[in-house]
């Protein structure tokens, strides 16, 4: 009994990593959203045309042969060319699909930083002036005005 249990444990220990390492077999929904319908110009999972149907049938054939997702995509590229993939290529004009969003994000960041610095400058200047004020609420009065204000307030109190 103990020997049988030990053998079973050894078998599980040996087979489990192999099973975990085996790449999963592809499924149509998993591939469809990463592939284009060549005629419609939309992703295959939202395309409903004879071309899309034929592409799906081809993908099903590849899946039936037990191919993984990467192998299916590679076979699609061999058959239809790189434009079959929804992900833009990293060369030529397609490169702009990667570069423009990065450039736009950097531009937006620069704009936010620039505006934040601009907004902070008057606020800082304002707080500096407030620090100069006797009551913390505005610029300091010159001595003549301060004396006049005191006199006026004393007259008002009487």
């Amino acid at each position, binding site marked *: 009994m103990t020997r049988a249990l030990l053998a079973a444990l050894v078998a599980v220990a040996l087979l489990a990593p192999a099973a975990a390492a085996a790449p999963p077999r592809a499924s149509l929904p998993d591939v469809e959203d990463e592939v284009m319908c060549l*005629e419609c110009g939309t992703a295959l999972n939202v395309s409903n045309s*004879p*071309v899309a*149907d034929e592409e799906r*049938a081809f993908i099903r054939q590849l899946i039936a042969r037990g191919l993984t997702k990467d192998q299916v995509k590679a076979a699609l590229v061999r*058959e*239809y*060319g790189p434009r079959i993939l929804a992900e833009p290529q990293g060369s030529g004009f397609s490169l*702009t699909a990667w570069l*423009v969003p990065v450039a736009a994000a950097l531009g937006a960041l620069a704009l936010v930083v620039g505006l934040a610095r601009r907004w902070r400058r008057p606020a800082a200047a304002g707080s500096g002036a407030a620090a100069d004020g006797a009551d913390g609420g505005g610029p300091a009065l010159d001595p003549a005005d301060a004396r006049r204000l005191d006199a006026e307030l004393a007259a008002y109190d009487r």
Partner: protein
Amino acid sequence: MRPRLYWPVTLAAAALIGLLAYGVAGTGADTTLDDAMRDGKRVDPPAANLQVLGGTRTGSLADYRGKVVLVNIWASWCEPCRDELPLLEKTHKKLAREGGTVLGIDVKENTGAALTAKHEFGLSYPNLRDPDGSYVRHFGQTGYPETYVLDRRGRIAAVRRFPVTQQWLDRTLPPLLRERA
């Protein structure tokens, strides 16, 4: 706007507008070929080596120079294309006797589907493949099927943006077959 911000912002806006214009222009159909036909001019077809359907070799339209070539853009998923295949096969047999050929260019489909249709319709004429349709775009292609007729010097002499008819073939081919290379 502050002077130091003016040029970067203007250049970025111009670049984005240029990119948008390029993208919009790239999606429109090229009418160069139609304009040339309207003016009675013959023009050279776009040059490219395409894979032979069901083979490992490549071929091009230039390989058929000296023949009148009926270049047919088709795909088996396109019903009007399938409808005209019997007429094209019949035309090919006739052309072959008179120094011409039909040449199919199968577009946007896998080899297996195209070969199935080829066998189904008993097509005996040669076929090339344009798997992503990038080659036929240079003809200003707008739909399926389309047919272009090359004269014996390899120049495009006629364009049909719809399925061919016997009447159109009878009107278009004989004068070209009478021409010398």
